[in-house]
Each structure stands twice: as C-alpha cells, then as structure tokens.
C-alpha cells in the first residue's frame, strides 16, 4: 500500500510540475494524452501471478470523428513472485535446488482505437481496442544466477474506461480504465513455460 501511495504521489507531483504549462488548453486540439499508473495481474499462469503496481501506461490519440480516435500506446509492467526452496528436475539426469524470485516484465505497444460515448462532457466513458506487439522478459533470479528468456509477440488489449474533466473547457482530467491484455509470446525458463501472456488490470492517471 505504501508503494502504491508513493506511485500515485509521483503522478500527482508530475502533474503539478507540468500543469502550469499545459493548463491553458489541451495538448492537442481534438486529441488526448494519458499518463497512467497501472495495477496489473497476470492470469492463466502461476509463474509470477501476484498483482503489482510496478507499471505505467502512456497513450495518445486524435479524434478523427467526434466519437472515434486513433492513436498510439505503450505501457510497461513488472510482476514478481517469490518461490521457496525446491528441487527442479531440469532433465532426466539433472536436478537443481534453489529458491527463486520469479519476474515477468512486459512492454506492450502499438495502435489504439477509442470510441467515446459522450463528447466534451464532464464524464467521457469510452471503450477501446489496442493492437500491437509486446516484448516480454521472463526471469528467475537465484542467489547466484539469473535465468531469463526474452520474447516477442502480438498484443491485443480491450479496455473500458472513463475520463473525468472537473472543468470540461480545460480538458485536463482524471483517467480510469480497466483492461484485459493478451499477447502471443512464448517463454521458457528452467522448467517453467508460458505460452501466451494474459493480464487484467486497471489504469489510473491524468488525461491532457
């Protein structure tokens, strides 16, 4: 909880520093830019399935018609999980005893399409679909060695969110969204395999 408070604090501090220069108007007329802290939970594998807030999301877009925007996104996230001492059978004749820190680092990026249901209101709910690629690093840290596997895959991320503009004319608001994220990456470390990365989570941040 302390770490989450710290992350939110950093976002707010950053907003306070940058807002004087951007408070006069939105960054791009007819567009938006989001800077979010995110909470992410890997699902569908038990390698590092503990939720964490060690990630950020950045997204910008331009409304090509009043309801629909096209843009770009990039986010990154780390999930870690401690694994106690155990014997891993690396092959029929090899065994390894160790405790480990499992880690998954994911960086999805690509294009984002958004459809908003209300235009220029105080509340702007929307749905979005993001398509792109993802870089992933699956890692096992031990006292002595680090075992890792890097992979690339296709990424798709449906998202449901809302931007709250306290003063709609200024177009500076709070952003909240929940998402599901799937990537086709395949990774293998020691005796562990991940075939496809699945995540759920939420973004919380600022929209300009």
């Amino acid at each position: 909880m302390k770490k989450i408070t710290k992350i939110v604090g950093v976002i707010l501090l950053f907003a306070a520093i940058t807002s004087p220069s951007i408070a006069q108007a939105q960054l791009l007329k007819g567009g938006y830019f989001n800077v979010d802290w995110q909470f992410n939970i890997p699902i569908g594998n038990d390698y590092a399935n503990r939720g964490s807030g060690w990630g950020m999301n950045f997204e910008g877009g331009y409304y090509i018609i009043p309801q629909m925007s096209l843009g770009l996104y990039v986010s990154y996230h780390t999930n870690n999980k401690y694994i106690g001492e155990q014997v891993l059978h690396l092959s029929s004749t090899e065994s390894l005893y160790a405790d480990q820190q499992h880690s998954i680092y994911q960086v999805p990026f690509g294009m984002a399409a958004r459809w908003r249901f209300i235009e220029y209101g105080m509340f702007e709910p929307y749905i979005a679909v993001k398509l792109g690629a993802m870089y992933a690093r699956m890692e096992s840290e031990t006292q002595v060695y680090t075992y890792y596997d890097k992979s690339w895959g296709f990424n798709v991320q449906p998202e449901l969110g809302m931007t709250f503009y306290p003063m709609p004319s200024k177009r500076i608001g709070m952003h909240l969204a929940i998402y599901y994220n799937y990537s086709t990456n395949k990774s293998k470390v020691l005796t562990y395999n991940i075939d496809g990365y699945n995540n759920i989570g939420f973004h919380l941040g600022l929209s300009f």
Partner: protein
Amino acid sequence: MTKIKKLLPLFIMAIIATACQKAPDMEQLSTDLMVYTHYDNQCDFSQYKTFYIPDSLLKIDTRYTEPQYYSTSDPRARQIVEAVVSEMSAKGYRQVADRKQADLGIILTYIKNTHEYVGYVYPYWWDYYYWPMDYWDPFYIDWYPYYPYSVGYSYTVGSLVTEMIALKEADKETKQLPFVWTSVLAGIETSNQINIANAVAGIYQAFEQSPYINSNAQ
C-alpha cells in the same frame, strides 16, 4: 512548436520510466545455496560397495600457479570431507583407506578464484591439471577423465564441486576414468571465506536429491 514544447516533458518522462524494470527483492531470497547435480544414467550405483576420498580439498585459485589444497588439518576441509563420508556411509558405501581397493573415488574442489565458465563445459581442465589421474594409482599415468554427460552449469567463485569416479570401470584400453556424478554447490562463500554451514547443508542436499546413489538399492 509550442505544442511540441508542451509535450516534451511528457515524452521524456515516458522514455525514462519505460526503461525501468522493477527488480525483485533479492533480500527475500534465503541465504541457502544452490545445489546442482548431474549423473550418468547408465551407471548402476548399487553395484559399488566401497569408496575412497582424499584427505584434502583442492582449491582452484588462479592467483597461484601451483595447485592449492586445504588438508583435513584445516577444520573447513575436515567438516566438508566428513559430511561427504557421512552421506556415503548412510547410502551403504564403505570407506576404504587404499584407493586401489575402492570401487568409487570422490574428488572435492573448491572454486576460490577463477573465471566464470558459462554453458556446457567439460571441466576436465582442472581434474586433469590439478587432480592428476595418477593420483588414483601410478598405473593411471597418462589416463584422462571421461564424462559420459555434459555438465550444463557454469562454475563461479565460491562453488564447491564434488565429483564421483567409477574407479572400478577404469578402461585400460582407452585409459579413461569415467566420472559418473557431479554436484555443484554455488554461493557458499561468505565474507571471502567458505561458509561451512552452507557447504555441509549443500552436501546433504546434493545426496538427498540424488537417490540413485545407494549401494543397497535393488
């Protein structure tokens, strides 16, 4: 241009933040060591009854040109050798004082200071140089070790390597001494010294995860 200036701090922050991967809490990892074992699955360990273990521990230290040893007058070596003898006895093997009468030979090597070897390597370089094969018997002059398996491990500073040789299978034709079991305990050095507690615990673990080493197995 004004818009670009406004966006610049956001993009700089994005680039800096994106470069960051949150490192796991390494302090959460226990001080226990890592234990790796590998064996020759063609070897029937139950056919052997006796073993011989030298009374000294080889120290690989590249600061010296000559081999260095911890003898059993050194309590560190003594406790490590005793742990191996204890485990071998518990598995039904009898220690013999004459290496010529032994079915199995055991070599203990402590990697004090050397370069890291990564990947699949045949570690004969130290056995051949530091543990001359004629140590086992004058007959073995010009013999060399034979590993029926590759050791998929890298050896780093602070590792204790235990190797088992099937002396009974010494091949007179090829002059090969087959190594049938390797154990690597990594991370047993604390404050530039062997951590005896970890080394002994690691030896026990190495035998525990190698149930095929048993003279009484049917």
